[in-house]
């Protein structure tokens, strides 16, 4: 006889089998003493497990009206300013969560601050570097412009001298005779 394996039986015991497969295992159990014994043993353990009943935590037993307090507490947890002093029923849990969140948020904030400081320093260095480059560029541009201006000045002076000499030559040239008229 092919016995269903323990995986099949677990699905059977916890009612996770399709109806057709379930009927097959029902039929097998009805005809197989070994499997019936095994099933009885497993069911016994399941019954024992049920003996450890945990009452619904008192927090959950509170009316849903406490939702507003939970919400207020959650707001407080992320720093929006609600106090926990008014909480009565959920105080211990929320206080614990608040402490943990506060510590972790402080750590996150410190890390962020440190990261921000590092980033600021990097920005500062980059800014100084850029400004230094701009200043060097400005100096180079100024020098080049000055050279250009000086060149223009020299060329202009040369041109002026040349013109002046031509004017002097022109002034010293005797007036030419009038063309003869026939």
């Amino acid at each position, binding site marked *: 006889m092919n016995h269903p394996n*323990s*995986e099949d*039986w*677990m*699905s059977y015991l*916890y009612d*996770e089998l399709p109806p057709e497969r379930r009927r097959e295992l029902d039929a097998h159990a009805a005809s197989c003493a070994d499997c019936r014994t095994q099933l009885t*043993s*497993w069911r*016994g*353990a*399941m019954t*024992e*497990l049920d*003996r*450890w*009943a*945990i*009452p*619904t*935590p008192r*927090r*959950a037993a509170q009316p*849903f009206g*406490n*939702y507003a307090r*939970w*919400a*207020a*507490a*959650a*707001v407080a*947890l*992320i720093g*929006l300013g609600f106090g926990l002093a008014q909480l009565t029923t959920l105080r*211990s*849990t929320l206080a*614990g*969560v608040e402490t*943990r*969140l506060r510590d*972790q*948020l402080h750590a*996150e904030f410190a890390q962020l601050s440190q990261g921000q400081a590092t980033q600021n320093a990097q920005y500062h260095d980059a800014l100084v570097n850029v400004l230094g480059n701009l200043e060097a560029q400005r100096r180079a541009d100024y020098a080049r412009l000055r050279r250009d201006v000086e060149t223009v000045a020299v060329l202009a002076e040369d041109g002026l001298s040349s013109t002046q000499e031509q004017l002097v030559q022109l002034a010293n040239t005797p007036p030419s005779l009038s063309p003869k008229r026939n």
Partner: protein
Amino acid sequence: MTDEQAMWRVAMHDDASAFARLAVRWQPPIQRLCLRMTGDEQLAEDLAQETFARLFTHRKNWVPTARFSTYLWRIALNLCRDELRRARRKFEVPINGESGEPAGPQFSVADPAPDEQLAVAERAALVRDALQRLPEGHRSVVVLKHYEDLKFREIADVLEIPEGTVKSRMAAALEQLNRLLKPALDLDGPQPAALPRTPEGICL
């Protein structure tokens, strides 16, 4: 609003009311899970708080395609596992009410007589102790399946193991529980407290 939608709002917009909604909905089952896993009420409360604190601080890690419940169960179980490992290193596994919390008040009874209430509490304590003696991987399966009523497929997702492994662990755990509890329930047999303690659980 579904849990996934609420978690999305928490992750994207730091939505406090959505976080509160999730906490209201999930704090009881998470605390129960931690209690079943550790057997210690105070520790379970701390672990449940830590679970939600971690959920919030790691909110940006939330992947919207995943089921919220799977994500949350996994956080809680990882915390329980870390705590159990820490306790094991210190040889301080809380068993038999050693946490200082009396076992009686943890168990609910309708309105029985005091002697009956005591018997119920003692029986529950036996089950609790037997559960703590299971290997952690088996205990996770038992707690998620038997007590929290997850589908085997969901447990496989939470624990990231094949579904068949989940079922075989469940079967093995039930058999082991029977072996652990049988001497205690047998009037002529030794009491479980006399059994050698193995904080890491007994391997089958």
